[in-house]
């Protein structure tokens, strides 16, 4: 160091260690205080000793709860593979958006352009009279899109990962889980657009929007369960690819996505109870367009269907996953 004897430098160096601020004798030297503070902030974080209680956040508690759910010994929510799921979803998103200039926009472009087309057909040509029809369709198409593309991709989630499944011991449900989670994150990215459209359009959206996560989580469980079931079935029946495309096409029109459930003649309303995704979609419509709270039927049927489909997936997994890898 060069001879940097700044004025006062000597004085501060010569200062006795027990120096006290003459202005307020009870207080310690302010420079010493700063140094002390510096020492505290720059000290390496002491690692918590093994097994010491750490304050648990709500997410931690939920995670611990989910990790205990192991029907038939199946780790349904892939909690033991948390880091793998994190990496796989990250990979899916990165690969999707790398090297494309508009990136994320492309994923949203599909539902947005579909909305524009349907809006033209139904509002301009067929002159459907419904308030906030754009928000209505946008919320329906984005939510249906999350479900349908998860199921469609889930069908091939096992056969498509043959290279990994035959080389590494991985629980098979990891692939449909990561796939559905990827689609869920795309839906979450589209949420600002949806909320923005609802605000600009001046819909009745209000506090009832807090019930949205229930329906999205239920749709997630449904899509994931169907992906597991269909993914396993696809190993044995390759015809399913063609059948599923047709079914999803018909299912889209059988679900009140772009039309209102009230438009269905009352004598056919029972169909809505047989369609797992009908109730969650009408509930989502209600949240964004009218701001009404979900009806009892919507709460109950959504939960019942999610649970039922999960049970089917678990039974299929339990019965057929044993010899699956060698049949891939």
């Amino acid at each position, binding site marked *: 160091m060069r001879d940097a004897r700044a004025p006062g430098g000597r004085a501060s160096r010569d200062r006795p260690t027990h120096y006290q601020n003459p202005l307020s004798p009870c207080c310690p030297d302010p420079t010493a205080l700063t140094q002390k503070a510096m020492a505290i902030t720059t000290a390496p974080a002491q690692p918590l000793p093994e097994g010491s209680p750490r304050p648990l956040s709500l997410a931690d508690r939920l995670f611990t709860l989910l990790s205990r759910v192991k029907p038939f010994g199946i780790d349904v929510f892939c909690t033991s593979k948390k*880091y*793998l799921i994190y990496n796989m979803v990250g*990979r899916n998103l990165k690969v999707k958006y790398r*090297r494309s200039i508009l990136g994320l926009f492309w994923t949203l472009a599909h539902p947005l352009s579909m909305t524009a087309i349907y809006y033209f057909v139904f509002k301009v040509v067929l002159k459907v009279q419904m308030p906030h029809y754009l928000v209505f369709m946008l919320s329906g198409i984005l939510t249906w899109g999350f479900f349908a593309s998860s199921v469609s991709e889930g069908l091939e989630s096992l056969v498509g990962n043959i*290279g990994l*499944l035959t080389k590494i011991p991985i629980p098979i449900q990891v692939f449909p889980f990561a796939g559905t989670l990827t689609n869920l994150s795309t839906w979450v990215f589209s949420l600002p657009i949806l909320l923005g459209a609802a605000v600009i359009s001046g819909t009745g959206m209000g506090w009832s929007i807090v019930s949205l996560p229930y329906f999205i989580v239920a749709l997630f469980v449904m899509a994931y369960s169907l992906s597991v079931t269909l993914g396993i079935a696809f190993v044995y029946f390759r015809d399913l690819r063609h059948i599923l495309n047709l079914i999803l096409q018909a299912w889209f029109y059988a679900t009140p996505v772009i039309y209102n459930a009230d438009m269905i003649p009352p004598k056919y309303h029972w169909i809505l109870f047989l369609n797992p995704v009908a109730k969650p979609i009408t509930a989502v419509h209600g949240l964004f367009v009218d701001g009404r709270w979900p009806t009892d039927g919507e709460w109950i049927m959504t939960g019942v269907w999610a649970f039922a489909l999960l049970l089917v997936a678990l039974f299929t997994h339990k019965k057929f996953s044993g*010899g699956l890898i060698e049949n891939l």
Partner: protein
Amino acid sequence: MKTSEPSLNQRQPVISVRNVSKRFRFWDDRPTSFKTVLVNALRGNFEFGSKREFDALKDISFDIYPGEFVGIMGRNGAGKSTLMKLLAGIYQPSSGEIQVNGQIAPLIELGAGFHPELSGYENIFLNAAVLGFGRAATEEALPQILEFAELGEKIHMPIKNYSSGMLVRLGFSVATHLTAPVILIDEILAVGDLAFQQKCIAKVHELNKAGKTIVLITHSPDDVARHCGRCIVLNQAQKVFDDRASEGAEVYRRLFASV
């Protein structure tokens, strides 16, 4: 391995294979008519086409103890890879029992889960996660992985631009720096250039010296004689030899000298 430890064979085996058989079923690809399938289904028979069975492994038993370096040899189709997948837990045995004490790292393929569009650096984390390691373990091993892979600045390039040698280096580096007490290696040493092969074998030796148990599948009796302490020879789905490596290599040579 190092027989300096007298209590070697009194220890608890890390892998215990008892009377294990593996039978595969094949369905002939001959297409059956929809009518036949339907009639069979109505009779409660949900099998399509004619079924053939084939034994990949018959009544195999052995124990592997901590710290051993075991070579498994056999011709193509002798059941080596099936045995490996059974040990790794990818297949379930048709009969018999396999007991594994502790964690196993199966290296059946290098760079499992690599994605061509992602950089080498990103693929390290992906590969590690696929192999079952968490973030903390990966980050701890990261400097050594990077150093061993010798990729320099190229580590941030998408791996689709890598040469096959570079890919192998990266995959091997991840696989050997994130390991479990038991490592299963399936013919992955026969890749890369000669210098790197030697580096790999040296690395495997180093791991073994550090106390890891190694099970190595190979076609080369020379490799087995040079590196392994013990050798298991499989022939036509059965175990025909299980003893010292140098003798095993001889058995293998004699068995297949005529072909």
